[in-house]
């Protein structure tokens, strides 16, 4: 069997898996839209479940990818120049996935606009929505400045997609003469630097803010920790960095030489962040556990030794930290190993998010409340239903499709070397 045949088969297998996920997801979305929350497994005592976890997971990926893109546009890190656009695109895409996740989670999806029309700025959630909106505008503006000349070039080439490119470029036409073109690129770089500089504190604020959204809830001792905003930021950079590493090492988007350089740089980031993340986690767990007293104790024991102990030990620690660290440190030159390591870091971070959102809600506010009223929705227990997973499958498969189409048809790798942002 030739390599081409193997590749062809692998492609078909991926397409088949995607189609199954998407169709299953579609069923879930139709159920969600017609039956509301009827098929969800969360209840009144564990009100936040898989969709909220997915939301903070995707939003973390977005913030991480964006902050890495700022290394290119703000801090002018030459090594990563060629993947700046991909980072921005991933940031925009995962942000969209996050917002769709949380939108499906709302009791009244049609009322989401109220956060704009009647915001309560005491609420960190209202702040989040306003900051996301600013962030969306900023990412789209950055992407436009980055790709407008290439989009124009694509549009000029003609073909069926020419009107799409023209529309995405918002009608922008690059000047013809070399001097004017150079001036145009210089203008783009200036704007990118300005926007990126605004974006860094914005991304830090909103993702630290997502941590604060949980940390400010005094009713849940497990969340009520000053370390949370920092933990969230580290997690964002780590998972976003892992995802980019997987994309760069796993896909043929840059030349061999460029890839080696980018992978080396990203590997250093990911390893450093992974170790820092583990230190924070040690802090978060060891302090309340040390003397074996305190409010958080039961929740932490549930995470470590409860029925879902394997989510922490196997999925998170082994697959999300141990294996990637081993791969990145022992086989740094192996492209496949690095791609797997990045992918594992990014994917298994969902376990951290689930372990963050759900256990805090498993403890009754008053001992005995769990037996006070017998009702399937009034229990301190939660395992996501298949319906909830199906909606996540829809979000992931749609995101994957948009990513594929973007990488295939959009100028996400600069056409000409001189058009790179930095």
């Amino acid at each position: 069997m030739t390599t081409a045949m193997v590749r062809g088969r692998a492609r078909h297998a991926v397409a088949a898996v995607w189609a199954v996920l998407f169709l299953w997801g579609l069923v879930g979305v139709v159920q969600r839209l017609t039956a509301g929350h009827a098929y969800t497994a969360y209840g009144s005592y564990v009100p936040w479940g898989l969709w909220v976890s997915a939301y903070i997971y995707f939003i973390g990926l977005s913030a991480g990818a964006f902050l890495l893109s700022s290394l290119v546009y703000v801090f002018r890190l030459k090594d990563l120049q060629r993947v700046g656009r991909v980072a921005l695109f991933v940031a925009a895409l995962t942000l969209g996935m996050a917002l769709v996740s949380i939108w499906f989670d709302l009791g009244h999806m049609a009322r989401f606009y109220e956060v704009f029309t009647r915001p309560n700025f005491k609420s960190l959630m209202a702040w989040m929505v306003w900051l996301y909106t600013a962030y969306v505008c900023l990412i789209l503006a950055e992407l436009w400045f980055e790709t407008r000349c290439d989009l124009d070039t694509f549009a000029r080439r003609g073909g069926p997609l020419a009107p799409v490119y023209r529309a995405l470029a918002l009608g922008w036409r690059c000047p013809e003469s070399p001097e004017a073109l150079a001036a145009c690129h210089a203008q783009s770089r200036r704007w990118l630097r300005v926007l990126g500089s605004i974006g860094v504190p914005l991304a830090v604020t909103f993702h630290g803010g997502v941590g604060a959204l949980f940390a400010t809830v005094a009713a849940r001792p497990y969340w009520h920790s000053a370390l949370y905003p920092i933990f969230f930021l580290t997690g964002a950079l780590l998972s976003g960095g892992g995802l980019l590493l997987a994309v760069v090492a796993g896909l043929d988007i840059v030349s061999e030489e460029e890839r080696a350089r980018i992978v080396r740089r990203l590997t250093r980031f990911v390893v450093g962040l992974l170790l820092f993340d583990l230190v924070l986690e040690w802090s978060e767990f060891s302090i309340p556990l040390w003397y074996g007293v305190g409010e958080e104790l039961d929740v932490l024991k549930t995470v470590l030794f409860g029925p879902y102990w394997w989510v922490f030990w196997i999925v998170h620690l082994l697959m999300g930290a141990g294996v990637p660290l081993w791969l990145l440190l022992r086989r740094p030159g192996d492209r496949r190993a690095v791609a797997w390591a990045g992918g594992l870091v990014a994917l298994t971070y969902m376990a951290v998010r689930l372990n963050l959102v759900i256990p805090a809600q498993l403890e009754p506010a008053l001992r005995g409340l769990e037996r006070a009223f017998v009702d399937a929705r009034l229990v301190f227990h939660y395992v996501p239903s298949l319906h909830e997973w199906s909606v996540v499958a829809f979000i992931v498969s749609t995101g994957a499709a948009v990513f594929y189409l973007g990488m295939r048809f959009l100028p996400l790798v600069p056409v000409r070397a001189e058009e790179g942002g930095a």
Partner: protein
Amino acid sequence: MRTLDDAQARAVRAEESMGTAMVQGEEGVRAEAGALTDRREFVKELLAATGGLAAWMALRPEDAAAVPRAARAADLLDRPEPYPEGNLLERMRADLLRALQKPVHERKWVMVIDLRKCIGCKACTVSCIAENNLPPGVVYRPVVEEEIGEFPHVRRRFIPRPCMQCDNPPCVPVCPVGATWKRADGIVEIDYEACIGCRYCITACPYNARTFDFGEFYGEGTPEVMDYERRPAFEYGKKWQRAPGRDGSPVGNARKCHFCLHRIENGMLPACVTTCLGTATYFGDYNDPESLVHQLVGSTRLMRLKEELGTEPNVYYLV
């Protein structure tokens, strides 16, 4: 709203007529009353009250709603017969009617629950469900049960847990759209038409006192969802009609106890207070020094849940 007012006015009068009977009934069992009522006398009065109620049902005055609320409260207060000495329910009703004559911001509704008197019958839980037509997954006043000690010295303790109507409510500032707030009279209200259903308030409540309406019915999966489940609720003085599969509020909203605001504003005690078998739940205006609750909050047996959080609950327990 006219229909609602009519219904409420009728309920006030019905409760008034039945009150006499209940008063007599309670007198018979109350140790504090000191003397046993003559059974024949009691039956006579009960029949008279029933007859009065039947006569009133036949001649329902349709213009009851036209009487202003404060005036109605005053009428009820100035009834020729004062509440019988020792009848706590009647005393609380008189306290309530007195409070209603004041402007809203001068009232402060509080609840006191005597844990030594609570027998764990859960009549309050059930009456609350009936009053507010609560669906599966939603409960405003569960009764938490605790077993203390070991055989042969075992005791059970029951802690009814309504919304604490905190003075510093953690559920209010978290709402991203300001759909929940602290009223001037102390009750934490939810605007069902504004709530987006994000459930942040549910996670923020340190008493698990908020629940979510998933749009379900107890009768689902059985041959028929009964009509009583489809009846509207009148929370916050508005008519709320849930329907299967409909995304209409309060489906998709956070829901919680509101001390039966729609009842108290119309001169009736909260459903849980009226139905408590042992009169273990007291309700009234703390700003009125003459009120029963003001007197009870001065007890040395007083306790509040999770006071260390600084939420300043307005539900007190006598332990």
